[in-house]
């Protein structure tokens, strides 16, 4: 029986292996990410989840394996061969970071504008047209500001648009990082522990935001998360990693009752799942 996400996956990871010297961070990992699914990658600390993200987004070159991305229009990208910025620009993979990486000394709005760098550079004809203030660039810039505003409304930060990002409270910074990634108009959004450090109310808001993004933008979301209330509530599909090896893969209900998972992972945190 094929799972729904295996029919037309946006991302097909095959035999992914990453070694650092003698350390095997990921070992022969294969999984699929459904086109409009929320897929969660879970596992205990040090299981290699963030390494998977770094391979997907080109920050690390995997030792072995293939990551094939298929856009809805049929364009294919082999992510393991591309540079990080090419993956972001052409394959349209956006990501956030475990330890927030905002441009702290720039304003909230500027952060969102940087995310729209490539279309804007194109519109500014590599700064030449922009230098002379040509109409085409001005229009593009207005659109970029509009898009930023749209996302600021979504994350409820319009009032803080002109404040430095580093001045925002922690939860707002997490949301801003998601909004910044969304301003790239990605086809897949990779979130590295988006709920870390959030209080229950903020965690709830995050669930709503992610479900809303999936519904309205029709994109795939891949997330690493420790907060089981987030994972179990919103995921369509969960892959479980332990010591770089996939130990389970399926729907939340399947994973929840998988004895491997309970042994390796959920045994520790079963009260959170229940």
């Amino acid at each position, binding site marked *: 029986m094929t799972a729904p996400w295996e029919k037309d996956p946006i991302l097909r990871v095959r035999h992914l292996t990453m070694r650092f010297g003698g350390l095997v961070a990921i070992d022969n990992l294969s999984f699929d990410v459904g086109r409009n699914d929320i897929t969660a990658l879970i596992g205990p600390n040090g299981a290699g989840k963030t390494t998977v993200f770094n391979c997907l987004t080109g920050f690390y070159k995997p030792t072995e394996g293939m990551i094939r991305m298929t856009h809805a229009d049929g364009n294919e990208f082999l992510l393991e061969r591309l540079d990080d910025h090419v993956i972001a620009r052409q394959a349209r993979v956006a990501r956030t970071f475990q330890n927030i990486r905002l*441009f702290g000394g720039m304003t909230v709005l*500027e952060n969102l504008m940087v995310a729209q760098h490539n279309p804007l550079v194109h519109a500014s004809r590599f700064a030449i047209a922009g230098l002379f203030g040509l109409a085409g660039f001005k229009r593009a810039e207005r659109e970029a500001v509009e898009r930023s505003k749209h996302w600021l409304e979504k994350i409820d930060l319009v009032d803080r648009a002109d404040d430095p990002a580093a001045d925002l409270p922690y939860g707002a910074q997490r949301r801003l990082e998601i909004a910044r990634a969304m301003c790239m108009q990605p086809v897949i959004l990779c979130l590295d522990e988006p709920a870390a450090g959030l209080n229950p109310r903020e965690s709830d808001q995050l669930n709503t935001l992610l479900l809303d993004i999936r519904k309205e933008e029709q994109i795939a979301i891949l997330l690493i998360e420790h907060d089981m209330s987030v994972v179990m509530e919103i995921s369509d599909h969960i892959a479980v990693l332990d010591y770089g090896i996939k130990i389970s893969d399926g729907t939340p209900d399947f994973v929840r009752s998988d004895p491997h998972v309970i042994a390796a992972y959920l045994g520790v945190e079963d009260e959170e799942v229940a």
Partner: protein
Amino acid sequence: MAQSETSLSARLPSALKDAAIAAFISLALFAFIVGIRTVDDPGKLLLEPRPWLLAGFVGAVFFGRLFLNLFFWSGAHTSEALTSALAPVGQIFERISPWLTPALVVFAITLPFLPFTDRYILDVAIMVMTYIMLGWGLNVVVGLAGLLDLGYVAFYAVGAYSYALVATHFGLSFWVALPLAGLLAALWGIILGFPVLRLRGDYLAIVTLAFGEIIRIVLINWYSLTNGPDGISRIPRPTFFGLELTRRGEPSFHEFFGIPYSPLNRIIFLFYIILVLALITNFVTNRLRRLPLGRAWEALREDEIACRSLGINTRNTKLSAFAIGAMFGGFAGSFFATRQGFISPESFTFIESAIILAIVVLGGMGSQIGVVVASIVMIGGFELFRELEHYRMLMFGLAMVLIMIWRPRGLITSREPSVFLKEKKAVSGELVQEGKG
């Protein structure tokens, strides 16, 4: 100060002890270097003891330290005391900075016609403007993109030599050669930047320093092209739409306009050239800051990894900052060549790079007006000590140290956002990153 007066007598013993320690250390410091002077004698060196001078140094340290201990430092650290004592000056800077720009522009434009202006003042003003332009050029690289470049003088040299060579060999006029020199400098920026821009932090600094030295050494030794240490002389002066600003120019400026000849005309003309060049630099930089390219520079300074995750080609972005900074350096170099009429490798030593970097950092990284203030203070201010060449450099070095301790982030620290939704609020310098590249 009030609280220090009440406990003056109570603190006297500790203050005396501290001053005595400082005096003892200074005795160790100066015993050889100041206390004994080497005197040249045919064939060998003689020593001449200078006990009174040494005593003067040690005494100055003792009483200076005692005085400061009693009346200024109530136990606090040197730097904190210095910072708090001078903090109001910094706040005044921040407050008047919005008014400073227009006032300075008006002042600069009218300067040649102000009553007190003479040739000397104009010469100093030209020099200050040259450093402002260089500072603005380097600000793109260091202040915006956060790339530490210790070899900026290389591009200044490339610009100067490019103009000098094409002008003396091919007879190209200043106005034709100027863009050419800028482009050549930019090209060199790309050539030098390409292999090294993935280096981080101080490694980049030391490699750029090495490149600066390499270019200088090549200039000294490539005799057939650069005439070596003798330099290139008789570099043509710029013309005003073909009019020469000399007494016997064909055609000459003063005859065309029917005004009496004055050697000052040429100086005023040069002043306006560098003013316009500098203002163009400022305009372009400010404009670029508001464009995606400039925003990417600043984002790069803030967090390079985040930039890569957002699809920014960091290598090209760094190269563009390097090339544009180099281009402005090249423009300034051609101006320097045409103004001096003579250039030699001696004008392009590391100390020039250090001075330009100091201007950028002292002014406040990324701040355009900060560069202006720092140039006026450091270049214009120390010009007053011209006759005392070595003392001037000594004071210059001391000023660099003291200003940095007083305001580690420079004179103007706040950052102006490049785009805003409702209102423009300055970003406090404390939040702005300095870049790791």
